[in-house]
């Protein structure tokens, strides 16, 4: 059985049906990709899966447990973490504070009024390790808002990694990165792939085809194809759709 399964998801905003009927599954230890043209409903799909919105219909099961309509907090507590398409950092915190706040050591103590997390050696080392993992060693005490764009994106992934999630959702991690940054990010995700189950939304086909074990293509609020990169490459209709030629 898959680690994560969503069946017949539907989501409307008023009159607009954004997700018609989405059925997806993500396997443990794999990198699953989601592709689709602008406005296809990819981010909305993530938002439904991670608890931002309740689906109007359908079921979401994580690790054999029904999490349909559960809050973002509860879903996060079960070991699902995510990054956002639009940058979502704690800007006035330093890089290491951004990681610290996302560690279970902090979250489990969210009502502890006396503990000093920045004086907690093991938490600090853990946070430094996470920064190291995403290539931000040496930036520990730089304020997040003054990091260059590429490093901010890396920090976002670091924040999502900090809880050591069982499943990691990344929403268009390459957005706004140049070719150079994209290449470096690709390397990073390739590295993370070895130890995490990951789902990535991506526009950049080359990027995703090089990384993913399995890709689902969303269009008009439906999954129009699922397969390995090789299988999809042969599907001309899918190629046209993701390139936006029949959008």
């Amino acid at each position, binding site marked *: 059985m898959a680690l994560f399964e969503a069946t017949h998801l539907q989501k409307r905003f008023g009159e607009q049906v954004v997700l018609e009927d989405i059925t997806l599954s993500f396997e443990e230890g794999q990198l699953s990709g989601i592709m689709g043209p602008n406005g296809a409903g990819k981010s909305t799909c993530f938002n439904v899966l991670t608890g931002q919105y309740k689906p109007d219909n359908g079921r979401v099961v994580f690790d054999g447990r029904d999490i349909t309509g559960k809050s973002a907090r509860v879903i996060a507590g079960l070991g699902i973490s995510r990054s956002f398409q639009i940058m979502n950092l*704690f800007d006035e915190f330093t890089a*290491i504070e951004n990681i610290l*706040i996302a560690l279970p050591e902090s*979250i489990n103590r969210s*009502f*502890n009024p006396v503990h000093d997390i920045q*004086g907690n050696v093991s938490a*600090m080392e853990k946070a430094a390790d996470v920064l190291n993992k995403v290539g931000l060693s*040496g930036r520990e005490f730089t304020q997040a808002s003054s990091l260059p764009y590429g490093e901010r994106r890396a920090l976002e992934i670091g924040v999502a990694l900090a809880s050591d999630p069982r499943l990691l959702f990344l929403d268009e991690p390459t957005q706004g990165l140049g070719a150079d940054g994209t290449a470096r990010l690709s390397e990073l995700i390739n590295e993370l792939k070895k130890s995490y189950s990951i789902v990535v939304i991506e526009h950049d086909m080359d990027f995703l085809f090089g990384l993913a074990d399995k890709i689902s293509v969303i269009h008009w609020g439906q999954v129009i194809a699922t397969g390995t990169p090789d299988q999809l490459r042969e599907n001309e209709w899918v190629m046209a759709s993701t390139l936006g030629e029949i959008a």
Partner: protein
Amino acid sequence: MNQRVAQSSNPLLTNDSGEHSHRVALTTQKTAIITKQMICMFIILGTFPLWSEWVGLYNYLGAEIAIWIIYALGFNLLLGYTGLPSFGHGAFFGIGAYAYGLTQLGIIESVWAGIFFSVLAGGIAAAVVACFISHRRGIYYALMTIAFGQIFWFTSMRWHTLTGGEDGLLNIHRGELNLGFFSFSLSETSSLFYFIFAIVMLVTVGLWRLVHSPYGKALQAIRMNEMRARFLGYNVWLIKWSVFMISGAIAGLAGGLFALVQQSAYPDVMSLHASGLIVMLTLIGGGFVSYWGPVLGAIVFFMARDTLGAMTETWLLWYGLMFMLVIIFKPEGIAGLWQDLMKRREKRQLKVNGSTENASGEAK
């Protein structure tokens, strides 16, 4: 001079110690329980009775400032740290004052009991209000705090049998402070001042600890990015609820002390105008950028009231103008100005370093 500068920047240049100092830096981010700034503030405020008359002020002002420092520090937990604007906080200050008065007049003449009930009443009232507003943010949050503030204010005006209406509760005796081993009278303004000053120290140290705890960090995370905090697994609603309650309890404490000092409790402190004052002085002080913002704000406000007030009856106009100037030119307030000055000084020193040791810029 040059020699010294060159020496001090040397360790940064040798590369093999770089790794080492890096590790040390990582493990020494501990927050001190007592800081230099704290001691500085305690000394300035604590010696107030010794020099106040010498500069034309009076002891009573010290007590007032001390009370408002407590109030403002608690308020800034909400405004500066969590980013939640309450324009109705006067309500909890007022409730604390009434609770103190009612305890003295109706239950028992004891300072401790009065303070206990002030904190309790402020906290409970705030906890109830927080139930209705904690799912909100920004302008809606602010509007709802105004609405609740007005309800409390109106109630205090009209519930004559309990609050004494517009006149308020009068003749609250200052009484004796029982410390177990001995007790002393609080009728002297200076002993009263030192009693309140002791509470200021407790609150200052306690809140300093709190804002550096995981809870305090969560508050700041909510201010910066509430949604992200939720997706990390923080119980955002409960944290917002609890910080409002804590802040209300501290306002209640300040209100209780106010009733003790004033020997009365009246609806004025609950008015929209009074609630606006705490927002204004916290902002002028720089509550958004510094823990010390509200302290500076309280000191500046009361000093301005007494010095400007002595010169002109329209002092509030001048103070209002000052507020506008701060908001327009330096929204980070007095603390922000101070931080800028420090940064500029640091830069200048760095420049000195740079001209003597070329690589020190690189080391930074």
